[in-house]
């Protein structure tokens, strides 16, 4: 499998957010909301850090 960095990151975030949502919250609604929050947190923070690193050549 030859995924791009962003696809690999998104897939990673998806798997981890599913597990975190399921094991940290008790009701399906809470699990879904927390899973979505974790997923977008992973993707957004990684994208921001990635762009910040772009400006530092060392």
């Amino acid at each position, binding site marked *: *499998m030859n995924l791009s*960095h962003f696809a*690999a990151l998104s897939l*990673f975030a998806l*798997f981890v957010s599913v*597990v975190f949502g*399921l*094991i940290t919250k*008790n*009701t399906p609604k809470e699990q879904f909301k927390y899973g979505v929050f974790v997923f977008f947190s992973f993707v957004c923070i990684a994208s921001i850090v990635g762009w910040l690193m772009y400006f530092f050549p060392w």
Partner: protein
Amino acid sequence: MLNENSPNVPLETEPAVRELTRLNMGVTVAICASCFVIPGLGHILMGRWIRGILLAVAISLMFLTGLSMQGELYSGDLNQSYLRLFGFFADAGIGLMYWLAEHARLGAGNMSARTYDYGTAYLWVCGLLNYLTALDAFDIARGRKP
């Protein structure tokens, strides 16, 4: 006094939280051990079907994706650098699938592959997530969470 629109009145559509039940320690240990046979099996055995199946699918797919990205499974050889033993600890968390993959020589890893680092991280993290799943099953079995 609460009326129907009060935020403190539970919605009828929201499922009721399960009652806390406490299993004995022998059964609890067996349930935790089952998580290392198939991820999520402990939850399924306790009647949490949907949660167990979703955990099984997510963790197993993560493991298979890591292997297909040519990630490396670390061995538990004590003669290697002790830092690699941390990787072994993480990888071994997936349980039976780790030993099957090692036996089939699937986790050799290909450092020249573009996805090697991601694949290896996938394999570590799915093992670590499975440890968390086993701890979650322990908490449910001991009546600490619904």
